[in-house]
């Protein structure tokens, strides 16, 4: 394998890792703060993709060439997912915090079923595409290979999101409140933190990240029914490897999943998914809290 091919493989691995981190980071953040595993998280990622695809589609109209300003429409999907999260948490999840976690899992499973069909209802059963945005950036030449420039944009967005989230959680006053609530909700509450507000903010932020993941990958993959359910399971693999509730863990898990997926697609396509799930099972077996998780 020559150097150019290796670089392409590395870039592809980083591409998967970026999107996986955006989804899994949000899932992990929500679990870390609220102790809820949101089975509908993948649907918020899909929702972000659909809203962006719809917005870009409206802007494109009949034009086949994408103009630069249309890239500014992609974050619309992330904002829509955040808004949806801000509505869902107080209405559906808040009544359940005092109940057994079985019920919390079940209600998010119900939400998964509902959101899946809401997207079918609103945008129809066929995939939405905005590949004009993907093609407009052209491609780079790396030795004998060519590589789409847009993929680099996704990697950069993933990197910026990771850095931004880190700064947000570890360098702002809100981050301190968030981490305090995550470590000890009762104590934080006793010290005057409005836990309800922190919960809705954390949930909204997590949904924003999932929506952003869907929005940035959409020009490459389109928005398809079922993409949320598939993404959720991979996000589970990521957070189980990294540790539920740990953002650093989600980053490491996303990188590992990215590398294994790229290697899997190249060398062992039949068992690529099985290897990923087995990885999660083995990590969970050896270190139940994940590589970087707290027990």
């Amino acid at each position, binding site marked *: 394998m020559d150097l150019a091919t290796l670089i392409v493989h590395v870039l592809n691995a980083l591409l998967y890792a970026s999107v996986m981190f955006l989804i899994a980071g949000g899932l992990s953040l929500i679990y870390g703060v609220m102790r809820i595993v949101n089975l509908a998280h993948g649907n918020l990622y899909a929702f972000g993709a659909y809203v962006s695809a719809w917005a870009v589609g409206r802007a494109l109209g009949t034009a086949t060439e994408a103009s630069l300003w249309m890239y500014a429409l992609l974050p619309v999907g992330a904002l829509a997912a955040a808004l949806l999260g801000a509505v869902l948490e107080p209405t559906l999840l808040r009544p*359940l915090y005092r109940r057994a976690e079985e019920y919390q899992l*079940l209600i998010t*499973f119900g*939400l998964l079923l*509902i959101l899946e069909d*809401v997207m*079918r209802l609103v945008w129809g059963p066929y995939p939405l595409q905005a590949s004009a945005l993907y093609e407009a950036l052209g491609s780079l030449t790396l030795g004998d290979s060519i590589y789409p420039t847009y993929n680099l944009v996704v990697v950069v967005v993933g990197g910026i999101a990771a850095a931004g989230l880190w700064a947000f959680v570890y360098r702002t006053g809100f981050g301190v409140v968030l981490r305090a609530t995550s470590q000890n909700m009762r104590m934080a509450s006793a010290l005057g933190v409005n836990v309800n507000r922190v919960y809705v903010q954390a949930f909204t932020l997590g949904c924003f990240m999932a929506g952003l993941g869907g929005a940035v990958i959409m020009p490459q993959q389109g928005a398809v029914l079922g993409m949320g359910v598939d993404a959720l399971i991979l996000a589970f693999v990521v957070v189980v490897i990294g540790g539920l509730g740990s953002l650093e863990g989600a980053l490491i898990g996303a990188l590992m999943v990215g590398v294994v997926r790229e290697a899997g697609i190249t060398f062992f*396509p039949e068992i690529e998914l*099985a290897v990923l799930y087995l990885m999660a099972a083995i990590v969970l*077996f050896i270190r139940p809290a994940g590589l970087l998780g707290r027990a």
Partner: protein
Amino acid sequence: MSAAVAAPRRVLAWSVPVLAALIVLPFVVPPWQTVLLSYGLVFAIAALGFNLLLGYTGLLSFGHSAYFGVGAYAVAFIVKYAKLESMEAFLLGGIVASGLVAALFGLLCVRYTKIFFGILTMALSQVLWSLAFKFFWVTGGSDGLRVPTPTLLGGLVRVGGDKQDFLSRRYYFYVLAVFVLAVAVMWVIVHSPFGKALQAIRDNETRAEFVGVQVWHYRWVAFVISGVFTGLAGALWVPLNGLTTPDILHWTFSGKMVFFTVLGGFQTFFGPVIGAIIFNYLENWAVGYTVYWQMVLGVVLVVLVLALPAGVVGTLRRLALRPAKAT
């Protein structure tokens, strides 16, 4: 002592008429109704197994599609490679295969509880799903594998004639018999000292360990029994469906199992059975009524969790017991 005797007597008082009704049913209703009910009874067997873990041991599995699917694929492999068409061979194959897989997966899973248990069972079931999906030369991939109508009772009951007629009469009675047997066996299990030990573990793990219950060992045995019941259901389901596809191994099918167990009420013995049968009708109706059937199921689930957490049977029982307590 008297309570232990009274409970089965009360159950017999209504289960005998229900059973009689189930036996008469195929002669009264149109064949498609009987076939639909057969699906419900099959899911009820799976629910019995699932609830041994959720209701009696306190472990929420999100990966029981694995054992249902293994039971179903075991039957398909018996047809494909061993060229057998005997239903008893199918059931034996389904029980052995799902028992082996549950024994292996259980060894990994029972060390954990709560959400980690749920995710680990889910990850393992997804391994099987992706294998069934990708190894198409063995499993038929997303097209699945066909299974012909089997011979029943070692060839005593011949297939002959119309498939619909076979499924709605002979096969229905076969499913009903296995169902009654499964209910009886599970009833004995949960009322045995072993079942009591499981409930002790569910209510207080530390205390159970303190009085000498080997917690992980009991959990593992419960896990295997649970997997075998679910696998048995999978094996019964294939001839009914005529086809097995990777869908039944996917974790969303596990989600449905959780759904109907909670729908009926997991704190009661018969709740999951009723829940499975109701769910089957509900899903069938929703699929026929609208393309947005998932939304219907989702709304039912959300309302159920918010308003009726005890499930249908649990709520009815509470209503029935309330006046008795007042006096």
